[in-house]
């Protein structure tokens, strides 16, 4: 009988060359942090995707409960005034 233990899952975040922030790229298996970093390098940056890597074991991420989506996100649906679209921007102001 197989007693194979699966390695834990890690989430990988990459900052691209011109990017300002790390973005979630995907996940992988690794036995520990060092292996997770090497695996992330090998699996996710082989096509020059980035210049900085973060890895974090998935169990450390606190996720919202999908069943609570109603109370979590629905109340924002009809609050268009929370978008700053009602201001007239001066022409001098670019990139907004």
């Amino acid at each position, binding site marked *: 009988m197989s007693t194979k233990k699966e*390695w834990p899952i890690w989430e990988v975040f990459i900052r691209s060359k011109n990017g300002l922030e790390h973005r979630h790229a995907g996940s*992988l*298996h*690794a*036995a520990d942090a*060092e*292996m997770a970093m*090497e*695996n992330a*390098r*090998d*699996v996710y940056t*082989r096509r020059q995707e980035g210049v900085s890597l973060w890895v974090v074991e998935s169990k450390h991420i606190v996720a919202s409960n999908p069943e609570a989506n109603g109370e979590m996100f629905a109340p924002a649906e009809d609050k268009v005034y929370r978008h700053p679209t009602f201001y007239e921007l001066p022409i001098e102001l670019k990139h907004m």
Partner: protein
Amino acid sequence: MENKLYDYILSLGDNSLILGHRLSELCGHGPSLETDIALTNISLDLYGQVRNYFQYAAELAGEDASEDSIAFLRTDRQHKNVWLVEQPNEDFGHVICRQFLFDSFHMPLMKQLCESKDERISAIAKKSIKESSYHERFSSEWMKRLGAGTDVSNQKVQAALDHFYPFVNEFFQETPLDKEMKENGIGGDLTAIKEVYFKNVHTLLLEAGLTIPEPNWRQTDGKLGYHSEHLGFILAELQYMQRSYPNSDW
């Protein structure tokens, strides 16, 4: 002189060519997705180095020579790689151990070749050294994991180590060509590398909880074109397309 330089470049490139091929056999067969990709990446790195070497060699050879003709149309006796790199994959322990024993040699060699008086070799070494440095990190890390892992992983990697150890001295067999290239400042100094090699390798093996083998025989002469039976099978697969469909293109 040009012929000798040509031969020397082949002796550098052939190790990467044959080891690159061995690793490419694992593409899609690695023990996990992550290690599969890692080993394939290393294979591609080595092939990239081979292309640089063989493009240079083809320029020196002139006439109809090309990187492809050098890679695909030489016989086994014309290959100058060491025996270690042509040995079969067997299991993950063997793959990692073979890689570790090679990387531990390749890294100090690349360091030396960065200072080569031959500008092209120096440029190739400077490009390769970042890759080799990562390969060494990867294989050393895995040697430690397997050696200090479970009883089974320790036994398997120790078996691989015992199997491969008689081959490592061949790296330091100084052929007349190696000697001449060292003396004219183009090639590496194998005696100096040997010292670094065994110091580093022994340190890591002990750290990994492995026993340093004491082989009672030592392989030689791959660099002179004498090879194990495995090389013929590698070349049969590697050269099949060019042999069957001469001059076919990508």
